């Protein structure tokens, strides 16, 4: 059974960006873990037992104790395994990193989902909102290579997945999300971040993700027609 002894188990789903960012954190910290794939939309008894409140992945089980919510899990990982720190040391910079992670999750991601799942005027407005919010997010880079400075940190892994998913969503939904002219620095950062070996090797197979995205989009479009 998962989580026996001191072991670390991650319950995830291959196409989930939230499970992905936990994988990134575990990778950076060089933590050995057992990965268990949930075959969504079916949910295993283990998932329902470990996350009865939300019934969602990712769930991290460490020493038999489960934790849910990806950013909560990432902060936990950062606190338990102290080398290669993810969050900055200084309280002010930690607060800023947490602020921006929340901004991305609450302002950029829903706009991206609406731009992907809507059509017509609603889609256009959502895409514009996303582009503007990404422009705002770009300001948090403050001329650094990565949000974490010289090396990647908490905010990089919290938001980096958006670069991968947005490109896929653009292709499938036929709407511009990453405007390289509008966000030149963020565009470069997305590219650099996603090319880092430690990041790239955790990404889901891109052709499989594209197919999955196309199917999901088809399903959403059919739902809007009914």
């Amino acid at each position: 059974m998962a989580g026996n002894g001191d072991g670390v188990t991650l319950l995830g789903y291959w196409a989930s960006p939230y499970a992905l960012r936990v994988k990134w954190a575990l990778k950076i910290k060089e933590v050995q873990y057992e990965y268990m794939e949930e075959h969504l939309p079916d949910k295993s008894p283990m998932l329902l037992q470990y996350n009865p409140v939300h019934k969602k992945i990712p769930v991290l089980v460490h020493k038999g104790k489960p934790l849910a919510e990806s950013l909560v899990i990432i902060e936990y990982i950062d606190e338990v395994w102290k080398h290669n720190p993810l969050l900055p040391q200084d309280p002010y910079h930690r607060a800023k990193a947490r602020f921006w992670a929340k901004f991305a999750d609450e302002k950029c991601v829903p706009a991206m989902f609406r731009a992907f799942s809507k059509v017509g005027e609603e889609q256009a407005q959502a895409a514009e909102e996303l582009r503007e919010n990404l422009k705002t997010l770009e300001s948090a880079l403050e001329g650094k290579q990565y949000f974490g400075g010289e090396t990647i940190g908490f905010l990089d892994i919290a938001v980096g997945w958006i670069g991968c998913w947005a490109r896929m969503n653009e292709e499938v939904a036929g709407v511009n999300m990453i405007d390289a002219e509008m966000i030149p620095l963020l565009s470069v950062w997305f590219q650099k971040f996603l090319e880092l070996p430690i990041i790239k090797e955790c990404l889901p197979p891109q052709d499989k993700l594209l197919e999955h995205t196309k199917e999901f989009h088809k399903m959403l479009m059919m739902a809007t027609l009914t």
Partner: protein
Amino acid sequence: MAGSEVKVLGTWASPFALRVHIALGIKSVKYEWVEENLEAKSQLLLESNPINKQVPVLIHHHKPICESLAILQYIDEAWPSAPSILPSDPHHRAVARFWAAYIDHKLFTWLKGVASAEGAEGKKVALDQVREGLVVVEAAFWKCSKGRDFFSGAGIGYLDIVLGCFLGWLYVAEKRNDVKLLDEEKMPGLAAWAIKFCQHGAVKDVMPDKDELLDYANMVFQAMPKLNGQCPS
């Protein structure tokens, strides 16, 4: 001037600003409170929080910190001497953060939903949802408190503050809809906790009077009946 190196931009009715009041009180930090008028936001607020233009903002050594949960953690880290706001054990910290996310993303959203729900049926559904959320948090309370007075144990901490700031607005929803939400029978743990929380030294002098909050809510909702939740974050 004493306390001028710490400023809080807030409004008296904001539960999120109340969190900051309480946290600074726990740490015995002196601060200057700046009451904002959200209809005419100050230059300081617009400069300190240009992204969201919302309260609360904590300004420490002229540096602004925004988002109440980030502010609570900042206060705990910038003033590390006891008493602590977050637990010391990483697992307990993660559990506290998990429930804080639940309270803000689910429970508070449902509470706002009561204000914007239309019709008797709509209101009933919204109120039932809040009650269900409170039942979930009741279970969390027993697990976290382990029979002691507060989520954090003997003294108040992160989760107590995160949930406790909404007690006034829960009362408002109860009175405006003539219902009981924090039900002593269904949620005995939370009901007892709420009384102790409101009496706590770091809370009782800064918590807005709940009947004043009710008068304020009645005035606001009368003026704008379709207002979709007006608590700034």
